[in-house]
């Protein structure tokens, strides 16, 4: 995290006109595609229920399934490494790079590698890393982090992409996505074919077979896991499903939720490295299973966030994300899922604002393919922040007073009367027919964007009493 505060990042985001153009064009479209895609799934709600059941069950037996997965993959000639944190994961990958005398790496999409800041580590060793997913490549060339789990460059307009890639990849200038993509294909093909190591993420790992599933649309994941002689796959400890049948269920909801497709263009199922007679494929496969705070989250009331299948639907549906985009969150995982996951993984102290960046409208829970109750966990994190004294002073001091008043009916009515008098006094000076247009801090936040109506001359209690008499 940088020293810039959440509020400063939000201000930047809200003032960024191009970000708004991009977010408006994209989030609405993704949301609409998702709705259409689920309409094409018979008994969609039952499939979501089953997907949730699979995820909940798997997490409840996570250690057993991880052991089973590792044993099965090792049987097929794959190597399995466990990393307790990002630093250890980096050590493992860098040691592999050394072992295989790697000079160039081509990389598919991996959110875990973002947690590890892996590209940075490679650069220190003088190893070149090429991101191969178009969106990832755009943010890599721009020197940024992805702003969306599924669409890393969602915050860019086509014009910005064309200008950036023209400059950085030395391809002809165009603002037409089809033309840009054609040039990128030519340029990146060379990288795939000469890279010594391919690094990808993992969408799901199947315990019963030792298979990793890698879901993607561009073919970059396929090339990354096929062309280089070594394939390294990075996965969080929670990416497991028990069986191939379970995999087929979660795949039914993943692409629909993420991009509105029935199935992504490429669903790669990789079970170990190339077998000796096979025509092609990597000579070695290493799967690095990364904890990095997840097992800590597992022991808490936030464990349900580990059911997440990383579809990004909650980002698209979130009215806050739609306004501020991903970078304002300041963390690897943005949006509602990030507002739970980030404080969970890294502790509430530096991230106390994130759980408050929500109106608790519930749109995230509504679209989540595995029905994760994100609002419940945002409230849980607010509770933790409050207990640790991380709330603003006025909230910390105001709430006990409010509680004191609200549990004493007579005092409560008196306090309302007093507030009404105060409000009228303020309003009379503002000359807007009783409306308040400027409230003092800490309530000034309200009147930055809206007026406050006059208090009633007679409260409901009084009116009801008079009517009854």
């Amino acid at each position, binding site marked *: 995290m940088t020293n810039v505060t959440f509020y400063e990042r939000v201000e930047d985001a809200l003032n960024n006109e191009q970000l708004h153009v991009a977010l408006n064009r994209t989030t609405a479209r993704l949301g609409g595609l998702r709705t259409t895609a689920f309409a094409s799934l018979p008994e969609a709600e039952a499939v979501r229920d089953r997907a949730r059941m699979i995820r*909940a069950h798997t997490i409840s037996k996570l250690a057993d399934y991880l052991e089973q997965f590792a044993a099965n993959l090792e049987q097929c000639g794959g190597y399995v490494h466990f990393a307790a944190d990002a630093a250890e994961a980096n050590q493992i990958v860098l040691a592999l790079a050394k072992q295989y005398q790697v000079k160039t790496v081509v990389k598919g999409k991996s959110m875990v590698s973002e947690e590890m800041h892996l590209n940075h580590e490679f650069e220190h060793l003088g190893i070149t890393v090429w991101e191969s997913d178009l969106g990832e490549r755009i943010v890599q060339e721009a020197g940024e982090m992805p702003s969306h789990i599924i669409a890393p*460059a969602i915050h860019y307009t086509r014009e910005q992409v064309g200008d950036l890639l023209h400059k950085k990849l030395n391809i002809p200038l165009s603002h037409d996505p089809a033309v840009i993509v054609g040039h990128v294909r030519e340029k990146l093909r060379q990288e795939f074919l000469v890279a010594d190591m391919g690094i990808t993420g993992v969408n799901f790992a199947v315990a019963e077979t030792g298979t990793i599933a890698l879901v993607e649309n561009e073919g970059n994941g396929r090339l990354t896991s096929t062309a280089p002689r070594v394939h390294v796959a990075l996965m969080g400890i929670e990416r497991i499903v028990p069986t191939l049948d379970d995999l087929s269920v979660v795949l039914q909801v993943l692409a629909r939720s993420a991009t509105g497709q029935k199935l992504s263009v490429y669903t790669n199922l990789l079970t170990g490295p190339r077998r000796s007679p096979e025509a092609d494929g990597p000579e070695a496969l290493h799967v690095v299973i990364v904890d990095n705070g997840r097992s800590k989250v597992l022991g808490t009331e936030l464990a349900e966030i580990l059911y997440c299948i990383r579809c990004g639907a909650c980002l698209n549906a979130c009215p806050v994300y739609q306004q501020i985009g991903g970078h304002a969150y300041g963390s690897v995982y943005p949006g509602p899922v990030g507002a739970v996951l980030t404080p969970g993984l890294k502790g509430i102290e530096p991230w106390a604002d994130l759980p408050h960046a929500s109106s608790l409208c519930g749109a995230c829970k509504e679209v989540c393919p595995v029905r994760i109750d994100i609002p419940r966990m945002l409230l849980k994190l607010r509770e933790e922040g409050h207990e640790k004294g991380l709330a603003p002073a006025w909230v910390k001091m105001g709430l006990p007073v409010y509680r004191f008043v609200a549990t004493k009916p007579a005092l409560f009515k008196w306090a309302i009367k007093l507030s009404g008098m105060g409000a009228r006094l303020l309003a009379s000076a503002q000359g807007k027919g009783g409306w308040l247009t400027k409230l003092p801090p800490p309530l000034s936040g309200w009147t930055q964007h809206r007026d406050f109506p006059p208090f009633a001359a007679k409260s409901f209690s009084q009116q009801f009493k008079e009517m009854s008499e």
Partner: protein
Amino acid sequence: MRDSRKIVLDQIRNSLKSGVLPTARASVPPREVAVNTDYAAMSQTFQRDMEAVGAKIHRPVNSFAAVDLVVDLIQELGGNEILAWDDAELPLTGLPYALHKAGIRRVDQHVPADDAGRKQKLAALGEVRVGLTGASAGLADTGSLAMISSAARPRLASLLPLTHIALLPINRLYPTMASFFAAHPVLTQDASNLVFISGPSRTADIEMTLTVGVHGPKYIHVVLCP
């Protein structure tokens, strides 16, 4: 040496004692997997979904027409070289001879294990414009082709060329991915790679604008073989 596997697994087991896991149950009950042998009906939904994502579907009336169609397609695309699955893996018996007669040459597809040989071979294969494969299965409900790797079935044939021609016998259609898995219980033991392909390579990373032909094939022709 630090045993990270044990450390991580112990920590998980320890956390599972206190973690709150809503709706978690001891097991996932088994379910019925769809069975369907109505190949004509399945081929209709397969075709609809494949075409919806920009693939071209061909339905030759018999295997002679199919052979002619494939040879014509390859010649139209200007290729006299193809990256292809072995003859035995192509479900059209007359096709190898017809290709030979038409002067269409199959490039050697085996990638050497050594680094220099590997890169040289990949560079050569990258020049080939047409890939010709069979298909291990088709999924009717998503419009997907399944490809299982082997010595005779290189992965790269459906990946490197700009055009991919796939021959799918209609009786290899399954209603769903789950039914395909159920019919092939050991498939991941037999091969290191299984890929489901649902249309041409594509991206929507620029403003969610759908653009095809990113890193994999831009054009897909599926020949439904009778």
